[in-house]
């Protein structure tokens, strides 16, 4: 089962290494990892997606808590949180296919950010599932390159994550 851990850490050098190293040595794979400063410049937020394998995710969360620079960890429930991912994708497009692609872009609420005679560069945000579906639909046209940021997530409601 996939878990999304939202980890509030001190914004200091080496913290990412400590967190990533801990996942590796406790036998957990990181599927995706997003890190950036929060509203408080002294703090960073890491959103880590990991697959639960032999050991419960609770174990890695407890171990993470032992890192001095880690302040708070939330295991986000899919239903109680909003998830987003950003996609940049370069798709082959000629005179015949361009119209179909533009239609897809419209439906998914994506945006064209660069156009050449044979390629479209598209930017899209959505839930990871939606991003996946969009990529699947574009695949037949020929994907030149794609980049995903990985999952970002925030709890719903008034309380901070």
């Amino acid at each position: 089962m996939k878990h999304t851990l939202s980890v509030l850490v001190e914004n200091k050098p080496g913290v990412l290494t400590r967190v990533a190293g801990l996942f590796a040595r406790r036998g957990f794979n990181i599927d995706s990892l997003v890190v950036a400063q929060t509203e408080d410049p002294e703090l960073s937020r890491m959103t880590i997606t990991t697959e639960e394998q032999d050991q419960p995710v609770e174990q890695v969360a407890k171990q993470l808590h032992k890192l001095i620079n880690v302040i708070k960890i939330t295991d986000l429930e899919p239903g109680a949180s909003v998830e987003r991912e950003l996609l940049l994708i370069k798709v082959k497009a000629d005179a015949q296919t361009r119209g179909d692609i533009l239609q897809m872009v419209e439906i998914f609420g994506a945006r064209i950010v660069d156009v050449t005679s044979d390629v479209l560069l598209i930017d899209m945000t959505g839930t990871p599932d939606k991003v996946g579906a969009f990529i699947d639909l574009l695949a037949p046209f020929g994907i030149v390159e794609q980049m995903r940021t990985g999952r970002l997530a925030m709890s719903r409601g008034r309380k901070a994550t």
Partner: protein
Amino acid sequence: MKASRVILEALTREGVDTIFGFPGGQVIPLYDALYDLPGITHILARHEQGAGHAADGYARASGKVGVCLATSGPGATNLVTPIANAYMDSVPMVAITGQVSRHLIGLDSFQEADITGITLPIVKHSYLVKKSADLPRIIREAFHIAGTGRPGPVLIDIPVDVTKEDMDFDPSEVPQMRLPGYKPTVQGHIRQIREAARVIAAAERPVIYAGGGVVISGASDELRDVALYGHIPVATTLTGKGCFPEDHDLSMGMVGMHGTPYANYALSQADLVFAVGVRFDDRVTGKVDAFAPHAKFVHVDVDPAEISKNVAIDVPIVGDAKHVLAALLTELKKLNLSPERHLRWMGQVEGWKRDHPLVIREPENGEIMPEWAVNKIWEVTAGEAIICTEVGQHQMWAAQHYLCRHPRQFISSGGLGTMGFGFPAAIGAQVAKPGQLVIDIAGDGSFQMTLQELATAVQYGLPVKVCIMNNQWLGMVRQWQELFWNSRYSQTCMECQPDFVKLAEAYGAEGHRVSRPEDLEEVLRVAFASPGPAVIDIRVKREANVYPMIPAGGTVHDMMEREL
């Protein structure tokens, strides 16, 4: 004030009066500052590993934070084993390393090693100091982190140019710590404690399983009160030895692979395991699914990550053992436990003790049995010496047969299992406890790993006694090869060894050799009474094995009680 001086002033403020170290290029400014500061004693080891283990032994014997100091590069990497050792056994330690100047970091400079990177998995926390102004705060935080909660090693890596800077320092101004993510839980949750009391009171076959956490927390008295009030037999781990007096009726000695049969039988039949300051190590549990299969588990630990890590816990209590046990006793007393409530169980434990005692084999054909030698050491010292050990067969014989009455009396590398730990640790323990007899029960293999520290013991007049259980084998591996690898003794025979008596004398220590059982007691008495360090080369039966033994991953049913 020079930053190098500030570092020492800040250490002094943390109560440091002893540093174990070894100089080198990038710590010359620090050593220069040390030259002027009579308040700190520096013990010059002969290898950084010796300095690190000595700081560890000092910390375990005294309960204070041990401090070691080394230069950059190889000096720092030589501290890796001591840091890992301290991490595994939760020993409070601050390791200070020199680093190349800031503008040379990352350029593969001379004697540069990324020691913060190398030690990341084996430290409780680490710092690379970038600004001299941060030093007072970092040192304060390092000691706080190392010594509180579940203790552990903290590394401070200081570039040499930082230590040369001038800075303002006011010793009366205590720097503010900034540790928003560090808040160890001390008090246990009272509802959990009440639940634990209820479960313990309801148990018919309870066992206390106590470990190093009880020693660290200073909770021996509280543990004894709970055990006595509840009439609960106590088994301890290797690192927990002495947290409950081993000559007490309720003591079952050590549990686990080489534990006593009765401790292991009791756990296998218990309906309640009250675990305090332990981590359900595989050397204790054996096959983890079959560990105490009929029991409910109550687990007290200051580290929440230990709860349900290896064994699912029914009643977890996160908190410091001393606080939790005191609160638990209050709750237990409210339940008015009758001393007769599990007489049958106590009878059963007594029966196991009677029918399956630890065996001390008397000398045979003029050969000294190693456990008999350990027992002699125990008799001669009236069980009151501080015992350090190396790692291997001798360590287990020492654990089985040197019964301890006091916490911090038995100092051994439990988690990492570091050969070469015991002797430098004994030096550290002797520095911490100058008036006490400190003995390193060693193997011939282990002692050869750090014996250069004989020079340290001699230089500082530290009267540490090394008792080598010399069988000219790497005995524990040899035992496994005999039992599980068809007696194929690959690379474990160590017949080529120095003359330990001459070696000791070459260093200026006393050397003794004992080959005949009838000489042992007298030699021990003479060596223990002498004012300086001594090495006693005890020639023991070469192929003696450690029993009882539960093979790795086995259960109590697989126990080999004695030589077949």
